[in-house]
């Protein structure tokens, strides 16, 4: 979104605005949609955000882009990316989760 100009920037921005508006609506209906009992500290979340930002930009997609749309278009590239990020996430959680339980 940051890197686009003109029309493309406009629709990307309105999509993100829709996501946030939907989030406000969900919060209004039932705040339990956003419970977070993961125990992650602010510092961990900032580090996680940084990795998610860098990773999705370099890898050209996330759970929605590769996982749903890419696999939905039967793209081998997206299938590989999805397997890799799910596996990486599972390995990371296997390593750190014992410290949170």
């Amino acid at each position, binding site marked *: 979104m940051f890197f686009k100009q003109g*029309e493309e920037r*406009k*629709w990307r921005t*309105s999509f993100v605005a*829709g*996501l*946030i*508006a*939907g*989030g406000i*609506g*969900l*919060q209004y209906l039932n705040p339990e*949609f*956003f*419970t*977070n*009992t*993961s125990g*992650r500290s*602010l510092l*961990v*979340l*900032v580090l*996680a*955000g*940084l*990795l*998610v*930002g*860098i*990773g*999705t*930009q*370099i*890898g*050209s997609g*996330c*759970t*929605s882009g*590769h*996982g*749903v*749309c890419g*696999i*939905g*278009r039967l793209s081998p*590239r997206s299938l*590989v*990316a999805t397997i*890799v*990020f799910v596996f*990486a996430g*599972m390995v*990371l*959680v*296997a390593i*750190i989760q*014992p410290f949170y*339980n």
Partner: protein
Amino acid sequence: MDKTTFVTFFSGVLFSIGLGISGMTQPQKVIGFLDVFGAWDISLAFVMVGGIISYLIFQLTIQKRFSTPLLAKQFYLPTQNEIDKRLIFGAVLFGIGWGLGGFCPGPAITSLGSGSLSTMAFVVSMGFGMLIADKVISQIFIPSVIKADSVDSAQK
């Protein structure tokens, strides 16, 4: 509000509702899905499979029925099909961040609606990460792109 803005805004709202109802906006659920050696909660896999199936059906139907989209000149579909180091490296970093925080981009942005400060910190950091990747880290991978381009032009 023009038509495109309205439709994309509404798509965003619809997507956020799906993410909220399915539990993607609750990091402990996401972490539970990734926690195969712990208290594994496989339910989110069905969200993804459900999403894939509905996307597949809608996408095929729309592409069959319309040769051009209603609100743009053409369908913009990804053209890249090479499975390269860049894709793998990016996916590994994303996977680590996903397991660390329990958020991926869509649900994180949706969760801004809850007003939680820690979610805001995540999203700001994510935006910063995207900027760094775009400006700095992408440069590392440029040589292979240039190589591919020059091979391409040599063949022409």
